């Protein structure tokens, strides 16, 4: 059946736009349940220390303090999505500055704060391991009993060494990438209470109500059906709320005191105890033939996951999967290591391990193009993957592959075609302009891991639909997009779709909102639900009219017979179903197709990949090392754009976050102490740093996606840093191998090149 698209593809305003703009939308941090206790967390002062004694007696008797909890109150004191290596409250050791030791619940925030200072913790400081390379040495102090190698793997296809011998050129570089902080507007926040049915309820920012509930229940040893987790509007997540933050501590307070509680991290707590993007070292040796055909790529990846793994093992997989870029390379060899240190915990962050390695491979490609004196886009096109190709892991690419088309659009873009003119238009002799290109690739869905989601659809007695998803609205606009998809699937107006979201009591499990796939997953489950719902309605229409079910089709809220003579409104169908006790609700399900993981990996390869190309125009001040991005062109392979407005917003936001990653954002950690704890020290781009951003979607359609849509949540950030780095190289002739490319780094790089050339 050809699906008419009336709402899909329309730039309708987000349904939460107005309520958010006028301050009516409630975030978890806006909630103050009556009679609440204020929660506060005592955090470790040392990056690595044995805990010899915790004495809470003085703090407990402080006026206003109701309860203080330590590890003794946690039945199963370890959690984590892959390895349960993280304590709810530290027992034997603390492993980073900020590791939680005690939770205070008090009548006022002041009393809670004061009590923190009265808890006596006797530490035995241990030598801290702060450098991942040091941490990898066997003699290094151990962060965890099992050693500092959290995960290590080696994957090889073909024979790189032989290819290196036969290659015309080889480019070898070591890249370093810094730690990026999510820096969402809303910090980690939540409240907890017992509802009128005695159910322990946690309302907190997150990305998966069901997984958060699982972590709460497994650590506190309580049955899952006794707990409800609700995730209201979230003031930004970017992967940073994929891990537990306040949820278990809140549940603990309410469970033990039987009173409501509120726990909102300060900005400093958020930057310290929140997860981060993995810092890393990437060594890459890439070989090509004179004609530009890539022959081999050997990569060594070392990611610093900090004190605990979080989603680190999967992040490492994504790094492995994408370190060869969107290219056909017959010989590849990857060694990858995830290292524990006493630094801050790294886990999920938009791009999930890919931005780091794409910075490396896309810089490599540029260096090869330069050596071969070849147009960098032409080189990329020569090696670009196309649909049906076999990827580097011997994996057949069955999904849509839009990278070649994106690169062709880049090549034909005015900024590229007329780049010599753009470069010549600088006002001052010491300002140099450059234009760079980069590709990006990342899988969406959970790859080779089981990945399944459910969506509920209910016909209301008014003839409208209530769609139930546990997807979380983390700012990306998924609810609006799903409403558009639902309206076209259920043949009604978009305003006839009501969405209930992210609530373990009210919505089925649509799995975690991550991996750029919530629209894909929920949209496909919704398609299943819509089919079931319309089928039911078709039979009711048949019953009501006496005509056979197959003559009915649906349009604009009516079941209409083929001859057009019978029209039954959805409301009429709903009333009939209700009166005859026919259930008004269905549940749709979608299981993401997957293949077996490659030996040595957890979740790769994916079957579905996102792609993008980007162009950057930069101005470099050769006297100061300052870089200004003047223009970005981002060309994502979107499959099909469901809502151009939210699509543009997603890509622009990712691009600006990418500028921050490339040029300014770096969590400075010295001796285990985070020096950038707030926005006066940790700089994120402001509107003054945001250039003109042109977004051009490739819309070739992905048949498996709802209406042809693919994921787009993460791909926008991935090509930005390498495009900027390549533009800098184009401008001043030096290649930045380390991001962020701060003015000082670039200043010295430019100076060192000048002294090499013999001039000043």
């Amino acid at each position, binding site marked *: 059946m050809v699906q008419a698209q009336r709402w899909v593809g329309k730039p309708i305003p987000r349904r939460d736009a107005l309520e958010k703009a006028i301050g009516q939308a409630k975030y978890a941090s806006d909630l103050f349940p009556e009679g609440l206790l204020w929660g506060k967390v005592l955090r470790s002062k040392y990056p690595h220390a044995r805990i010899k004694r915790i004495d809470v007696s003085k703090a407990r008797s402080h006026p206003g303090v109701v309860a203080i909890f330590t590890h003794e109150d946690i039945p199963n004191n370890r959690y984590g999505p892959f390895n349960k290596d993280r304590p709810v409250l530290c027992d034997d050791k603390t492993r980073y500055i900020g590791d939680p030791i005690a939770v205070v619940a008090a009548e006022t925030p*002041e009393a809670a*704060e004061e009590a923190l200072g009265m808890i006596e913790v006797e530490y035995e400081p241990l030598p801290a391991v702060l450098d991942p390379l040091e941490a990898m040495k066997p003699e290094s102090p151990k962060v965890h009993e099992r050693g500092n190698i959290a995960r290590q793997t080696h994957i090889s296809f073909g024979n790189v060494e032989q290819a290196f011998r036969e290659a015309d050129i080889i480019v070898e570089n070591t890249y370093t990438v810094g730690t990026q902080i999510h820096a969402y507007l809303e910090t980690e926040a939540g409240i907890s209470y017992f509802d009128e049915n005695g159910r322990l309820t946690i309302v907190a920012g997150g990305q998966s109500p069901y997984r958060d509930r699982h972590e709460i229940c497994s650590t506190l040893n309580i049955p899952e059906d006794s707990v409800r987790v609700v995730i209201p509007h979230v003031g930004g997540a970017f992967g940073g709320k994929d891990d537990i933050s306040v949820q278990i501590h809140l549940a603990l307070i309410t469970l033990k005191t039987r009173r409501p509680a509120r726990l909102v991290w300060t900005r*400093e707590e958020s930057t310290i105890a929140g997860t981060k993007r993995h810092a890393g070292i990437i060594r890459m040796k890439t070989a090509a033939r004179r004609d530009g055909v890539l022959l081999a790529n050997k990569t060594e990846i070392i990611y610093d996951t900090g004190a605990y793994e979080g989603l680190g093992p999967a992040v490492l997989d994504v790094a492995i999967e994408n370190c060869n870029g969107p290219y056909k390379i017959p010989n590849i060899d990857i060694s990858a290591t995830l290292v524990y240190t006493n630094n801050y915990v790294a886990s999920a962050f938009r791009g999930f391990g890919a931005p780091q390695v794409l910075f490396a491979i896309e810089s490599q490609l540029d260096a090869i193009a330069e050596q071969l004196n070849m147009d960098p886009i032409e080189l990329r096109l020569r090696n670009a993957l196309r649909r049906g190709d076999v990827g580097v892991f011997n994996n057949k690419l069955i999904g849509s592959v839009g990278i070649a088309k994106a690169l062709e659009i880049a090549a034909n873009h005015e900024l590229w075609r007329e780049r010599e003119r753009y470069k010549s238009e600088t006002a001052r002799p010491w300002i140099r302009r450059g234009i760079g290109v980069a590709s990006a690739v990342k899988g969406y869905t959970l790859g080779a891991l089981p990945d399944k989601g459910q969506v509920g659809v209910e016909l209301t007695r008014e003839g409208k639909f209530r769609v139930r998803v546990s997807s979380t609205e983390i700012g990306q606009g998924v609810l609006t997009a799903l409403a558009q998809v639902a309206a076209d699937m259920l043949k009604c107006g978009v305003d006839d779709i009501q969405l209930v979201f992210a609530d373990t009591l009210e919505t089925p499990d649509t799995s975690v909102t991550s991996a750029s796939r919530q629209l894909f997953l929920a949209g496909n489950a919704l398609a299943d639900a819509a089919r079931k719902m319309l089928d039911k309605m078709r039979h009711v229409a048949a019953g009501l009219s006496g005509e056979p079910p197959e003559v009915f089709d649906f349009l604009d809220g009516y079941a209409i017979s083929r001859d057009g003579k019978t029209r039954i409104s959805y409301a009429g169908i709903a009333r009939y179903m209700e009166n005859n006790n026919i259930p008004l609700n269905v549940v749709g399900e979608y299981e993401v197709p997957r293949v077996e993981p490659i030996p040595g990996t957890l979740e790769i390869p994916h079957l579905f990949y996102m792609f993008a190309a980007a162009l950057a125009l930069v101005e470099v001040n050769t006297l*100061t090392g300052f870089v200004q991005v003047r223009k970005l062109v981002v060309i994502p392979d979107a499959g099909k754009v469901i809502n151009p407005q939210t699509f543009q917003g997603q890509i622009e936001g990712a691009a600006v976050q990418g500028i921050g990653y490339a040029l*300014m954002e770096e969590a400075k950690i010295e001796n285990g102490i985070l020096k*950038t704890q707030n926005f*006066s020290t940790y700089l994120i781009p*402001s509107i003054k740093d945001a250039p003109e951003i042109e977004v051009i979607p490739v819309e070739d359609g992905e048949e498996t996606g709802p209406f042809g849509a693919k994921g787009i949540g993460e791909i926008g950030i991935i090509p930005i840093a390498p495009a900027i780095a390549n533009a800098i190289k184009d401008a001043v002739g030096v290649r930045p191998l380390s991001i962020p490319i701060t003015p000082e780094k670039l*200043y010295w790089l430019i100076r060192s090149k000048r002294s090499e050339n013999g001039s000043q």
Partner: protein
Amino acid sequence: MYPKSFQYFAPKSVKDAISLLNKLRGEAKVIAGGQSLVPMMKLRLATPAYLIDLNKIKGLEYIKAGRGVIQIGALTRHSTIEKSELIRERVPIMAEAASHIGDPQVRNLGTIGGALAHCDPAGDWGAVILALRGEIRVAGPRGQRTIKADNFFVDAFTPALKPNELITEIRIPTPPEGSGGAYLKMERRAGDFAIAGVAAQITISPDGTCKYAGIGLTALGPTSLRAKKAEEALVGRELTDEVIDEAAEAAAEDAKPFDDPLRGSAEFRRAMARVLTRRAVKQALSRARGG
């Protein structure tokens, strides 16, 4: 974090404020715009037991032209200076410097007196007042006194103020005909503290030589600094590119920068002192010539 609890006073006159300061001795902090103090209190870097708020005192917020001098009340907001017609006409470098301070919210509340009393080596006013040879009027229990800018910045966060003294006014000698100034600030991002900043104020004689040169440095030492060698390199000479390069080199020598994990190494900042001085003097010169 929340600030530690404190007791709050809002005196209505300078006299009352001083007698409170006198009585509470080192326990009290004066709050004007609060744009530096409040963040420090939230970080618990400052934990005053008493706050004395000057905002209820009338007559400390003004900009006026006296004889050969521009007088600015201590409570005058950065944004008022930024927008003042008088300032833009007579000492435009001050309007330019004001526009670089923090963000609009900071400028709307922060005051020039408060910023100087805070004495942050990365604060923007110090370099400008030094370059203009300004004076700081101060009131204490025994009346008023005047401190030359050169003697005001003792050390980081340490002005030449006694614990019971208040800044009441900033006085700037009105630059004569043929003057021009420029304040350049290099920031990691708009609104941040300076990596380095340079204030240059010059006056050109009718014969084309430099009659007056004032060079102030921001974030290039333990306090705001005056780059005296750089000034000497300019005064009495025709400001050719070579002379300006010489002054820029001298300013880099005058600078006493330190390593900062966030805002750059000492050597980078010294290099920036050179770049900024060159550019600031050139801009000041072009403005002095009516450009």
